[in-house]
């Protein structure tokens, strides 16, 4: 005579090991694999922290993807502890997993005990549509898009470089864009600063940029800093950002940003432009060289035309700004080879890209030391620079 359902369950449970939620709670950060065998809709309503979803109906085909090593400790759970018991028997007897246990009482008992559940975030239908071309790329996908939506990127300057960078990062769905700029839109900006427009001449650049970003992608939270970055406010402004995009037009701020970002270990995607030429590099503190490793000192005024207003081909900041945006996306997603330890030199007239190596300087005044040894007084300091710029007018 065939056993009843209840009898079968009792028999199965006698053949497997079970584990109480309190023990699972203690094991959760200890490298055990926790597998949720409920359906994917149930998983979406909340699951144990770090649990992977392998619905029982797909157990045989998907468990190896989730737990490739059969000697791993595996804990299975479901809603009440029954489906996970069957699943545990399958893993143990049919698939050869050596250390399988089923959590008693399932997620219901887990919650009764007051333990935390994670609600997986899902892209909305609109987001799935908006970012569909990202979702189709295996290197990005839904997880990568979520990383972009969670990312906080700070743009120093909403000018030539900042304009295209901000627009494309907003379009890509970078969730928080901080923008630092104290300037207002001028007619002479519009030859290249494409985030602004003719109607907004005279409007603060941070407000104008926010308006364009909002119109492009309402997912993006814009944080505006209508100020000039200096030694007194830099630490406060940049702290908490994942990546900083340097498009500032003067050396003092570039050195200041370098020193503060090394101290806070925030990577900086740096570019500069002049005439028909552009430079780009990624400074990732302690993984690669910093700006001071590359340029030990700023040049004197006659070789630093950035002190004043200079000519630039209008499309060049577009090219360089989008190379920056690309590096930001790569850093956020953790894909590809960012330009760390390399300086790219773009010559628009020649249509050439040259690359030179950048090494960490063992005597670097900033990044050869521990971040907590870098003092407030040292940030952005170098000899006589204010005088140089003043002389250049």
């Amino acid at each position, binding site marked *: 005579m065939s056993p009843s359902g209840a009898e079968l369950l009792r028999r199965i449970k006698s053949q497997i090991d079970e584990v109480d939620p309190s023990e699972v709670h203690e094991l959760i950060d200890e490298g055990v694999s926790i597998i949720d065998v409920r359906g994917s809709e149930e998983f979406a309503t909340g699951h144990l922290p770090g649990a992977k979803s392998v619905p029982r109906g797909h157990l045989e085909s998907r468990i190896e993807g989730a737990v490739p090593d059969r000697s791993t400790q595996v804990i299975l759970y479901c809603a009440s502890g029954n489906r996970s018991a069957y699943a545990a028997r399958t893993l143990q007897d049919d698939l050869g997993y050596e250390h399988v246990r089923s959590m008693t009482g399932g997620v219901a008992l887990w919650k009764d005990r007051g333990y935390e559940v994670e609600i997986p975030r899902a892209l909305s239908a609109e987001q799935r549509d908006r970012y569909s071309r990202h979702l189709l790329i295996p290197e990005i996908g839904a997880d990568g898009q979520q990383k972009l939506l969670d990312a906080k990127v700070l743009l120093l300057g909403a000018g030539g*470089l900042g304009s295209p960078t901000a627009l494309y990062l907003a379009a890509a769905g970078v969730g928080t864009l901080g923008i630092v700029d104290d300037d207002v839109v001028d007619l002479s900006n519009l030859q290249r600063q494409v985030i602004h427009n003719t109607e907004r001449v005279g409007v603060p650049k941070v407000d104008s940029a926010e308006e364009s970003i909002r119109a492009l992608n309402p997912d993006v939270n814009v944080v505006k800093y209508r100020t000039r970055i200096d030694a007194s406010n830099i630490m406060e402004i940049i702290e908490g950002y994942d990546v900083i995009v340097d498009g500032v037009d003067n050396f003092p701020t570039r050195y200041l940003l370098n020193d503060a970002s090394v101290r806070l270990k925030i990577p900086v995607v740096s570019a500069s432009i002049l005439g028909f*030429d552009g430079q780009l590099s990624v400074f990732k503190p302690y993984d690669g060289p910093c700006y001071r490793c*590359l340029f030990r000192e700023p040049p004197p005024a006659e*070789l630093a035309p*950035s002190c004043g207003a200079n000519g630039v081909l209008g499309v060049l900041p577009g090219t360089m700004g989008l190379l920056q945006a690309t590096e930001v996306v790569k850093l956020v997603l953790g894909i590809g080879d960012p330009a760390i330890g390399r300086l790219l030199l773009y010559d628009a007239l020649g249509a050439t890209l040259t690359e030179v190596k*950048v090494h960490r300087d063992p005597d670097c005044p900033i990044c050869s030391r521990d971040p907590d040894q870098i003092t407030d007084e040292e940030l952005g300091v170098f000899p006589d620079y204010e005088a140089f710029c003043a002389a250049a007018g």
Partner: protein
Amino acid sequence: MATIKIPPVLRASVGGEKEVGASGENVGEVLRDLAASHPATESQLFSADGELNRYVNVYLNDEDVRVLAGLETAVGEGDTLVILPAMAGGS
């Protein structure tokens, strides 16, 4: 004869050229040859004591001469020197 790539800020000193040729056995000699042909570059490249200015980076092909032998680094026929001061323009 090595090729020297001239950065935008120095081009006025070499008659607007992006690349010029110069001769020498090592980096120092090649740059001295450049300075002899285009005297306006001398003070931009070299400090009063004859060393490279600290704000000028020089690369032999793609390598920083600071990690090679500095001004003593040997230069072959067909090598390219890149002179690179920092640029700060962004707006």
